[in-house]
């Protein structure tokens, strides 16, 4: 693969107060690739995404997006530059209707009508519920709504954090089908997941974090082989 990676994280450190959570993370997402970032709780995955998306400041280290040094950029600037972040938990506004949520997605630079059109085409169920408050949707539907932002904002890089959290496996499969379709359009994706296998299915590369560092990288099948040990303990 040629050229500059869409995302390059170099020796990144970050801390909450004096407590260091990221201890020198190196990570690379090639253009057009899907990278799965796995690892147990507390490994620092979500913090890493927060720093990349500009929601938190690093203490040292660099982030390059498509070769451009973006350290210190604000989340709203990054959003308008083509970074779409879907944070952990339900990343929708629960007290707004589905349609109002979609309306706000037009801040990424696409017209509201276009947003509606794309979102409803992908998820007809959202159209049925367009006047319903997002908070009253089922977990799966809320994540569809969240994913609609990834679909409609036409991102250069998509960051997905724990899409599967609290959802039944069947729904997770369905959501990841959509992620796979987004990937097929050439969007580069960094996906953080606990459901290792589901994420690995659509990934081109995988990385494992523990203790604030990336401790293993490789092909999905290599990583899959060691995941159970890392997550459930290797004592067996």
């Amino acid at each position, binding site marked *: 693969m040629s050229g500059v990676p869409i995302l390059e994280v170099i020796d990144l450190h970050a801390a*909450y*107060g004096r*407590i260091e*959570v990221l201890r020198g993370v190196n990570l690379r997402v090639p253009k057009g690739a899907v990278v799965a970032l796995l690892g147990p*709780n*507390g490994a*620092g995955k*979500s*913090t890493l995404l927060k720093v990349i*998306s500009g*929601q938190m400041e690093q203490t040292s280290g660099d982030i390059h997006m498509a070769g451009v040094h973006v350290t210190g950029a*604000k*989340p*709203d600037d990054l*959003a*308008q530059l083509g970074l*779409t*972040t879907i*944070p*952990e938990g339900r*990343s929708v*506004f*629960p*007290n*707004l209707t589905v349609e*109002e949520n979609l*309306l*706000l*997605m*037009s*801040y*990424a*630079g696409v017209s*509201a009508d276009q947003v509606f059109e794309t979102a409803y085409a992908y998820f007809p169920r959202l159209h049925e519920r367009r006047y319903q408050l997002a908070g009253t949707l089922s977990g799966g539907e809320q994540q569809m709504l969240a994913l609609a*932002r990834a679909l409609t*904002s036409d991102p250069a890089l998509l960051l997905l954090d724990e899409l599967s959290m609290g959802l039944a496996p069947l729904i997770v499969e369905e959501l990841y089908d959509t992620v796979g379709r987004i990937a097929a359009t050439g969007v580069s994706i960094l996906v953080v997941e606990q459901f290792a296998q589901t994420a690995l299915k659509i990934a081109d590369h995988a990385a494992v974090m523990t203790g604030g560092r990336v401790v293993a990288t490789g092909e999905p099948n290599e990583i899959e082989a060691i995941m159970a040990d890392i997550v459930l303990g290797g004592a067996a």
Partner: protein
Amino acid sequence: MSEFISYTLIGIFTGAAYAIAASGLVLTYSTTRVFNIAHGAVGMFFAFVYWDFSQKQGMPAWLALIVVLLLVAPAFGVFVQRVLVRDLGNAPVGVSLVVTVGILIGLIGAATQIWPAAGRQVPQFFDGHLIKIGSDVVITWHEVITVVLSAVVAFALFVLLTRTRIGTAMRASVDNPDLLRLYGGRPQLVAALAWAVGTSLAALAGILLTPVIGLQYYDLTLLVISAYAAAMLGKLTSLPMTYVGAMALGLAQSYVVGYLQYIPFGNDITGLPAVIPTVFLVVVLVLLPQAPLRIGQVKGLVSAPVPSFGKAGIWGGSLVLLSMLLAFGLADSDLLLVGTAATYGIVMLSLVLLTGYGGHVSLAQFTFAGVGAVAYSRFDQPNLIGLLLATLVAAAVGAIVAIPVLRLTGLYLALATLGFAQLMDKLVFQTSIAYNIGNPLSAERLSILGLKFSGTGEYTVLMTVFLVLIAVAVIAVRRGRLGRMLVAARDSQAACGTLGLDLRWMRIGLFAASAGIAGLGGALYAGLRGTTVSADFMYFQSLLLLAMAVIWGVTSVTGAVLGGIFMMYLPVAQSDHPSIAGLLFVLLGVGAVIVGRDPNGLANKLFGFNAWVMDRLYPMLAERYPGMALLARGEGSALPASGSVLDVEDPAESAQEEVERDVAVAR
């Protein structure tokens, strides 16, 4: 029957005006999480601006209205949001309260500076135009216009919030501003717009109510309580419920005014209508479901260091000696001022305990002082027993205040205390129980074990002794078991609960102790002055006290003493220089806005300066001029006398930032 209809119509008019004010409050609070306690003061200030434009400069009323509502007020709102309260949404509630109290004081100061007290009339819109309904029900065009405007405001807000993207973004940022940022929206822009609209609505409400309330500095400022009471029904977020609350409040107030004469003892409580919003507020607060304890943030406040007893004793002794010297050297009129400073110092110490250590903001400390003063005068026992009784009465009142608001924290608690201050003023201080409107109450000076402190000089020394004793007691509490528990309860209520601490009793005790100290100060003050009047204990004094305390440092005893001196000096300076009296309030307000973000205040800066002098400057000088070293040391230890009364043990760690950690490393 026609009487009832009249009162109902008046109630609807008042409710409509409250609704306009309240919706502005909801808009600003819900989008930025900064409660603007100056909301009523904004209404007051722009009512004056409107008077200036329309009456003094002769602009047509409609033009003046447009200029104020669409130009001046929104611009001011954006200024406040961008410059004064920016990023306060995530700060501790105490900080944003202090900053907006600063704005309130600044606005009152500006109003008194620009428009000195005088009889001013703001005519009603279409003055003299009436509509007759039936035979004897009359409503004015002004009332009709008010109701129509409130409907227009409701409709416009509805369209803004549900039919436009920026309005949708406003509601979104209520839930989650960080997520809005990820969407590419700009919460700061949203916040500025909300403050522009909110300020304009406060101005409109102020202008509409002025013909009824009158163009007054302090009464219009209390509009915030009505707006807050109405908004609380909608939990500060729901606009429809806010309108319901405003209407209910307006009607209740109108009926009370109308039918007060039929209530038993109604003539004794003519202040009742004015406190209906407060009563309404307390009822709503008490009936609201209990908010669960907040979990999940380790907050340590970096406080000013606590002095050792030795040092506190030395400085306390020096202070008493100084007061003795002054007692010989100064005229009685000046000694009265020294005594007043001691009073304010004592009241401020009550705030150190409550706010500085306990983390609860109170806007009613002078009310407690007033209770002490009234009790001392009424008991008419000018000895230690009378003093003790006055203290206990104030403490009991403090405990009673704490009970209904036990479940409230931060913002709600602070506003409840402001409501309480007004309630006491109208229903107790102004009635025959205490001052009976404007009458002074006289009190004799204290005698201790038969020894009468009748001379002003002796009495001043006595007050200084009390100040020092209380200061030492406060320090003792902080250094001991109770102090640790206080700080622990401030840092984490959840942890204290799970360790077995009953937070309710803790809070009641803390309020009682704080109110008792303030009451003691008030009682001593009554003896000092010989007579007191209700204006001595007006709610505005408590706001000044908070601002002063925060500027000088609410976490240290030194801050309290310095604050007391300047609190005394403020009215002196104002009467010496009447031409800039208002400006001094503005200055104080600006000070509170600037320093409000660091509750340790200027006193802590002094500690820091002291440490810097000792650690850096003197070694450097000593190295350069070896002969000077000894002299310099000597001067150095004398230096704090100029500013810091009670020195500190270890000033090195007095950083000013609040350490706030989200220690959820797991997340």
